[in-house]
């Protein structure tokens, strides 16, 4: 299957392409709105800062394309910053309006070491995954947690994960395979 990976200028898209290749999927990196709307599955990856990512997504028209996908209930997987950008608002960079694909907001981590780095259990998924983040999502659509941190959200075709499935070894590949299978 062709999976579109949304390019917003600062993401580590190569690792996502590689993980998809392990599963026999072809990752296509683009910010083209038509390609995003039409793809059977889209990944919104997650490295960089919220403000520059939003600027990039708006200028390229990718933001509107992503909203159209959720209106159609098409599968979109947001990873780390990609999940955070899907909410209404983030505290990062002095406050940034998000894509508002899902209800919720993003606040800075106040407990433990920041950034929260390393492998942590996600009980609902029965495995440990790799996390690397300083901000956390608060959302009524949360479906999985890790140490009280929202690890996954799911609503209307949008699936968001705070961890990096493309960097979580066999557990991450299995998660990606399951996530992409209904598409």
């Amino acid at each position: 299957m062709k999976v579109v990976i949304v390019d917003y200028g600062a993401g580590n898209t190569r690792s996502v392409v590689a993980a998809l290749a392990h599963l026999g999927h072809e990752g296509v990196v683009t910010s083209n709105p038509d390609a995003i709307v039409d793809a059977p599955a889209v990944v919104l990856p997650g490295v960089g800062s919220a403000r520059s990512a939003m600027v990039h997504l708006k200028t390229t028209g990718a933001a509107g394309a992503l909203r159209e996908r959720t209106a159609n209930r098409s599968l979109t997987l947001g990873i780390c910053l990609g999940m955070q950008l899907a909410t209404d608002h983030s505290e990062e960079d002095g406050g940034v309006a998000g894509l508002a694909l899902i209800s919720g907001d993003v606040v800075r981590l106040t407990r433990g070491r920041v950034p929260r780095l390393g492998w942590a259990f996600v009980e609902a998924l029965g495995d440990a995954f790799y996390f690397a983040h300083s901000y956390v999502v608060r959302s009524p659509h949360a479906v999985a947690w890790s140490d009280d941190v929202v690890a996954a959200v799911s609503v209307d075709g949008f699936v968001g994960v705070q961890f990096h499935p493309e960097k979580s070894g066999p557990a991450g590949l299995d998660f990606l395979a399951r996530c992409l299978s209904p598409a």
Partner: protein
Amino acid sequence: MPLARLIPCLDVANGRVVKGVSFSTLRDVGDPVELAQLYSDGGADELVFLDIAATPERAATTVGLVARVADVLTIPFTVGGGVRTLADASRVIESGADRVSLNSRAVADPSLIDAVARRYGTQAVVVAIDALDGVVYTHGGREATGASVVPWAVEATERGAGEILLTSIRHDGHRRGYDLELIGAVRDAVSTPVIASGGAGSAHDVAEALRVCDAALVASIVHDSPGELERLREEIEKLGVALRPRRRRDG
């Protein structure tokens, strides 16, 4: 809190993994991509590649290597050595590395830390500190600076380092245990995670380090064969330190 991490470090020169036999002799021990895969299979939580022969002319070799590693590896990896500018960091990260490690250049120009963190986030920036008697050393531990270790670690994290990779020069390579006092002092002073480096000789040494910080770098202790990593992990867990559970992919 995330689980304690065990991080094998691979020294790379001219696109190959090497092992220092003495200061001047480097022995070729293999292909970085193959070794990375073996360590990953052995349960490494993360890998660090340190380009010990990095020069601006050879930057392309490093970038090519990073891309090849990123294509096969499904665990995070950090690349250090020769990252002198934001453009260098961009090339490494956009080729597929998760994090860059800054050392000498960050001491000479601390604003490099701010620049990389602003662009890629603090989780993408590791600041490596080589310490001897409380003083920061640069250029592979050969040059003493005027900086003290703890204040430099604090400044680096305030500027945007998401983790400190702390090596005790005195303990490095001796395999008699990490410098727990130094590691504890730095970890108490910063709010980011800290990776201990230098001195691992046994599972007991690594377990002791993981009780005072967040991750341990291992080099010579697992370099004779990557299979040793699996045994090391089991021994560390028997000593009561929880590590990531091993699982092979279904099907």
